[in-house]
Each structure stands twice: as C-alpha cells, then as structure tokens.
C-alpha cells in the first residue's frame, strides 16, 4: 500500500452508495474519485444506473434487481486496486472564452475591491490556471472548478440574485464555475462566456464533463457579440 487511506462506503438506501475518499477538497482525492469512475465506466455497467463523481466521493446508483450490493462492492474493490497507483489520464483542456467585467461581470469590481487588487489583476489571476472540473451539478452542465488562485477566494453574495444569465462565470469561496442555464445564484459574477455550456441543439449537449480540464481566455466585447451570434 502507498499510504492512501481506504475509502469509506456510505449507504444511500438500497439502490445507491457513496465511495468517500476523504473529507477535504483536495486535488489528489478528486483524481482518485475520477480514476475509479473512469475504471468502472470502462468495464461492464450491467445494473449500474448512475456514476456521479463529486469533490471527494463517487456516487453509484444501481438496480438491485440486476446487480447485488455484494457484487457491486467487489467491482469497487477491484477498481480501487486497479487505480490505486494509476492517476486518471489528463485530458486536453477545454478553452472557454470569457468577456470579463462590464455588464457581463457585475461583481468584478467588488471582487477586486475586497482583495485590494485592480480589475485587470483579477482577470489575469483568474485566466492563468488550468482548472480541474471536479464535478458537474446544480444545473445541467454546471462545472465546479478547482484551482482558483488563493488571492481570489471570495465569499458568496449576501443575497442571491433571482436570475444569473447562462454563461456567467462566478466565484464562491475557493470555487469557481460557470452558470449553464439562466438560474438563481449567489456567486460573485466576474464575466460571461458566449459559449453555451448546455445546449440541447448540439449532438452532445454538454461542453464539459467531470474529470475534464478547462482554461479561460479573456476576450473583448466585440468577440463576445461575434461568438454569441455565431
């Protein structure tokens, strides 16, 4: 063994369980979650209804008529051994063009003021890293990203907005993410992408999936309008 703690199996009724790798938001833990999810996806999925990787655990829903709890535990045990030493394959980052500030990012100046930074510095810090999509949730296609620069960690707004437009890029504590559809929300909104994270007209409605990597590229307003209409 290489010193990694054994994951805990938590029961979610008789049709689901959660494999918990730790109790922290941590890149190593999240990679183990995705490695196990990828491993299970590559095998027989008979009886497995859902595999939902989140920050530190993998949620598995199954049909007890097709797959017994005991057999599922064996598949998980086998997957844990196979992935213990092998990190998940790194995927090429998905590039997301973002128009920061103005009406697209009404909280950019707020975030800058909280941290004593210029707005340009906030944009530069936000667009620098390659982020990991640690999970997708809240609304269809909404990616939760890890890798935010510590200097940008900002609490949520005191009162949430009733409608945050689709494409809005926000910060909440140490997380950053992109609103996939118009929805209520309390994250600090610093910019917006003209790219649709969730679009039922596309063959694959989802731009990103858990385990992907992602980077933001600042664009001027003209490009936003051009891309939005293309």
């Amino acid at each position, binding site marked *: 063994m290489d010193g990694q703690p054994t994951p805990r199996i938590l029961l*979610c*009724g008789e049709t689901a369980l959660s494999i918990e790798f730790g109790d922290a938001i941590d890149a190593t833990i999240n990679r183990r979650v995705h490695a196990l999810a990828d491993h299970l996806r590559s095998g027989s999925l008979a009886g497995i209804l859902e595999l*939902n990787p989140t920050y530190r655990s993998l*949620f598995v*829903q199954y049909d007890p008529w097709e797959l017994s709890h005991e057999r599922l535990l064996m598949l998980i045990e086998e997957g844990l051994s196979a992935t213990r030493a092998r990190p998940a394959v790194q995927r090429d980052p998905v590039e997301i063009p973002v128009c920061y500030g103005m009406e697209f990012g009404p909280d950019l100046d707020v975030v800058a003021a909280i941290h004593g930074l210029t707005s340009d510095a906030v944009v530069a810090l936000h667009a620098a890293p390659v982020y990991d999509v640690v999970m997708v949730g809240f609304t269809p*296609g909404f990616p939760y990203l890890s890798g935010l620069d510590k200097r940008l960690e900002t609490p949520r707004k005191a009162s949430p907005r009733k409608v945050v437009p689709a494409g809005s890029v926000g910060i909440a504590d140490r997380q950053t993410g992109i609103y996939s*559809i118009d929805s209520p929300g309390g994250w600090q909104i610093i910019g917006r992408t003209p790219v649709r994270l969730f679009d039922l007209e596309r063959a694959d409605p989802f731009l990103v999936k858990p385990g992907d990597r992602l980077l933001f590229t600042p664009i001027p307003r003209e490009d936003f309008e051009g891309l939005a209409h293309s």
Partner: protein
Amino acid sequence: MKALRILEPGPLATIQDLGRRGYRDRGVPLSGAMDQTALRVANGLVGNAPQAAGIEITAGGFRAELTGEVRFAVTGPEMEIRVNQEAIPPWTTCTASGGDILTVGLAKQGLRAYLALSGGIDVPPVMGSRSTYLRGGFGGFRGRALMKGDILAIARTPGPPFPMWRAPSSLIPPYSEHPKLRVVLGPQDDYITPDGLALFLGAEYAVTARCDRMGIRLEGPRIAHRFGADIISDGTLPGAVQVPGNGQPALLGADCQTTGGYVKVATVISSDLPLVAQIVPGGTVSFETVTLLQAREITLKREYQLRSFHAAGSHST
C-alpha cells in the same frame, strides 16, 4: 395519432415517464413520475411498456377530451374520476370513444394521479426520456407544464381488443396522510447527535406547504448536528432525507439536484417513494429504520410483483 386535448390542466399536469437515467454526472436530475408504482401499473393496465410516458396530474382539477377511441387507466390514491357523467374506478382499464370528456378530481388522501393511454404519450425524447424537467425547461411537452388547448398524440394506434382488467389490490401502495416511511440510515447519520437521531426516528414531522417535485420540507422536533449541517457537496438521490442547519428534515423528490451540501441522515427505501409522492401539506410523516438486507428484500419482492403484473398484461394482448 391525436388522442387528447387538454381542457383544464389543474394546478400542475406534466408528462412523465420513469425518468432520465445516466446523466446525473452532468447535473441532470432523474425527473419522471414521483409515484413510479402508479405510473407503471397504469401502463400495464393499457398494455404499455412500464416506461411509457403518461400524465402526472397534481391536485386534481384536470379535464381533457379524448379525441379518438383509446384505452386508458388512471391510478393513484382514491379520487373522483369521470368519463362524461359516469364515475369510473381507478386502477382499472377503461375505453373511451371520440369526444368523451375525462375528469380527474382531487384525491381524498393524496396528491398525484397518473393517466396512461394505450401506446403512450408521444413527445420527442430528450436524453432518452420523455419526462418533463420544468426547471431546465426540457422534456415532456415543449419543456413545460400542460396548458389548456394542448393536443397530445399517442405513440401508436391501439392494438387488438384488450380485456378490461383491474390491478390487484396488493399492487396499490398503502397511501396515507400519515405514512410511516422506511429508511436506511446514511450516508451521513454519523453527523447527527444520538438525541437527534432518536428524535428523527421517534417523532412525527408535519408536511409544510413547501412541497414540490424537488423536495418536501418537514417541520417538527429539531434534529441536532454533531459537526454542523454543511458537508462537502456529494451525490444525492430522490428519497434522501436532508437535514439543513435549521434541523428540520427535507425529503428530496424526483427533480432534486444531483449534488448537495447538506447532511443526509437517511434514505427512504425505493418501495416507499410512492408514499412520499402522495404526501400533502397538513399531513404528517414518521420514519422507521430497516437494514440494507430488509430494504433489499422488500424492494425485490415489490419489483417481482410489478414485473409479474406486466408479464401477465403483455401475455393477454
């Protein structure tokens, strides 16, 4: 083939099947019938596959014109159902001819009724399901609740004559205004104090007006947390019992978000979800624990009954 014209949808009527599977990791909820037993049996009564789409009628007030000859069935808690002026029984195959008016009233003890038409409601599947997801604005009829004037088609013309039959009473869930819901503890029961756990399992909780397809907020003795109510967000499913910071439990429904950041003390077993679907404000619920093995035995027996019923139905067509 056109089959139905909505005259009055009532407070909320949506097209639902057994839900959208395989997209939870993309943030897409299950959706589908809140009371899956009622929809599955309704489908069986008209010779459909269990997963065919029907109409989930919430709190009655529903009136529709059946525009052609069609077999149909209405299931759910005891309620008033009429074809024109004639009262008809629930959980029974019925036949309508063109121009008949179907009325579904408010249930005496419950909330949701299911209407299945032979052939199944024909709307384009979205990500493999015909279920309506209102918050996302997709699935079902144009991604929205049914409205007056909507005309719905069925997927195929009715087959050969089909015997009138009635679902055996053993298939009808024991609906109640005061259900005792069986739960398996976890995933985060260890986040609740022993006293909190004893209250959760011993007390009655009142159903509040905040009750929809996403979740049902309950009110009663406060359940205390050992380490606070927030966890690092993890996966959720319908039937999970969340305990947010106010200590008042909430039952998650079919449209619940795919991830959540509150402690989940327990999960209602799948066989009891039909009872959750029929909870109304003013009622109460209580909880009792079963082991994983007991939960599995109950669920497998239930599944066997439902599958046998369907097999018998397809044999008789």
